[in-house]
């Protein structure tokens, strides 16, 4: 069984049907990129996967355990799924080190010393060991996002969800975050990434999922989607987005 299985996911907000039957799988070590127009339900999909938002219908399994079952301990599941937000969402009153360490101490109940060592290792991994004692407001956007990746990594996640991790960044800061993500993919981390960075999608993703209006329109390896998509709408969207965001990365 795949590491992550999503089956027929539905979600509505009031009258608006945001997810209308989304199904896909993610193998261990795989990176999949989700693209699609604004308001299509990409963020909603990611939030349903660790049940920050409760789906209305459909089932999700992580490592064979059904996340959507009422009997699962959702807190245990969330600790195994990293989440990287568009605007970082670091805990503003804590230093970089404490941001990374908090989950280890409070959720994993790791002894303080061990937690500190682990957190420092993750900060070093994203190149920010020297910023351990800085507060979020003292860091650039790119640095904040790298700390938030370290925060996710520290929990030893089976999977990390990225929701437009570079969209809030100044262009010159995007590269440093993408670099960290590329290294993660190379190290075999399983990742599901919502992004407009087509260069990243092209070179790193095993598969691209094109979503529109709450359904998956088409999915496949980047080579296929970029050069020979089955659905005309996919080609049109890819052309538009590549024009708009470029392929700088």
């Amino acid at each position, binding site marked *: 069984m795949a590491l992550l299985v999503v089956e027929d996911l539905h979600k509505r907000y009031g009258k608006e049907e945001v997810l209308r039957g989304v199904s896909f799988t993610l193998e261990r070590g795989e990176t999949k990129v989700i693209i699609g127009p604004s308001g299509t339900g990409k963020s909603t999909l990611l939030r349903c996967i660790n049940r*920050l938002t409760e789906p209305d219908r459909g089932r999700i399994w992580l490592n064979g355990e059904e996340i959507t079952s009422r009997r699962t301990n959702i807190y245990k599941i969330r600790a195994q799924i990293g989440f990287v937000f568009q605007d970082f969402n670091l805990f503003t009153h804590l230093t970089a080190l404490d941001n990374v360490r908090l989950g280890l101490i409070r959720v994993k109940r790791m002894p303080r010393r061990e937690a500190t060592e682990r957190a420092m290792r993750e900060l070093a991994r994203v190149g920010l060991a020297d910023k351990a004692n800085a*507060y979020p407001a*003292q860091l650039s956007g790119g640095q904040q996002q790298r700390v938030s990746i370290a925060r996710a990594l520290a929990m030893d996640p089976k999977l990390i969800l990225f929701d437009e991790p570079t969209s809030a960044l100044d262009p010159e800061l995007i590269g440093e975050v993408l670099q960290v993500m590329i290294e993660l993919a190379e190290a075999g981390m399983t990742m599901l990434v919502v992004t407009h960075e087509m260069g990243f999608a092209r070179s790193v993703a095993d598969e691209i999922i094109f979503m529109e209006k709450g359904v998956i329109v088409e999915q496949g390896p980047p080579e296929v989607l970029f050069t020979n998509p089955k659905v005309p709408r996919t080609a049109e969207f890819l052309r538009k987005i590549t024009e708009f965001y470029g392929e700088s990365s």
Partner: protein
Amino acid sequence: MTASDWQGLLKGVPSLLGGLGINLQILLGLVTLGFLVGIVIALIQVYGPRPLATLAVGYEWFFRGVPEMVLLLLIYYGLRQFHVPITPFIAAVVALGLRSSAYQSQIFRGAIQAVGSRQMMAALSVGMTRLQAIRHVILPQALRLSIPPWSNEFSSVLKDTTLASAIGVIEVFKRARFIIGRQYGLALPAFMLVALFFLVLTYMGNWILGALERRYRIPGFEAKGTGERF
């Protein structure tokens, strides 16, 4: 003022200071009660299930709406009526504390909402429970934001402690009136002295709260450099 007035005033100072001690005790009690209940009410309003949250809103509305003097009398004489052996001191702490809890809950609610749901979401995403997130992420930030408005509430309840005299607590205001009763010429100086006491206490309280605010200020948010103001 005659020489005997001065003498009378001087003799009255220890009694007034003793009375002020009672005011401080009431203050400590009511602020603590108001703080604890206020936080719980605020948390229920923001995170509680709908019916409970509505109840908490009603609570806030009631205790903010009833004049404190009426509340004081209501609780003291009301409980007495039902043969609850409540002392005037305890009644004052409870009445003023509950009133303050309503105001404090409004302060804390605003601060919790200012911290924002994204911080909660980030905390949940690493596997924390709601209570852990509130304890380690939301409240530490919300309490910092609460200090300036809380200073206002502090100054206000400090002065309100004199209302306890209305149900027979022998605090500083009551004692000033005793002194004046004995020596009418002391009316002005005695009240001025009481006013001075409260001015000093307000100043000290706000100084301590200001120091607390500086102590817990989150680095990176203050204006950088020396003497720069924005």
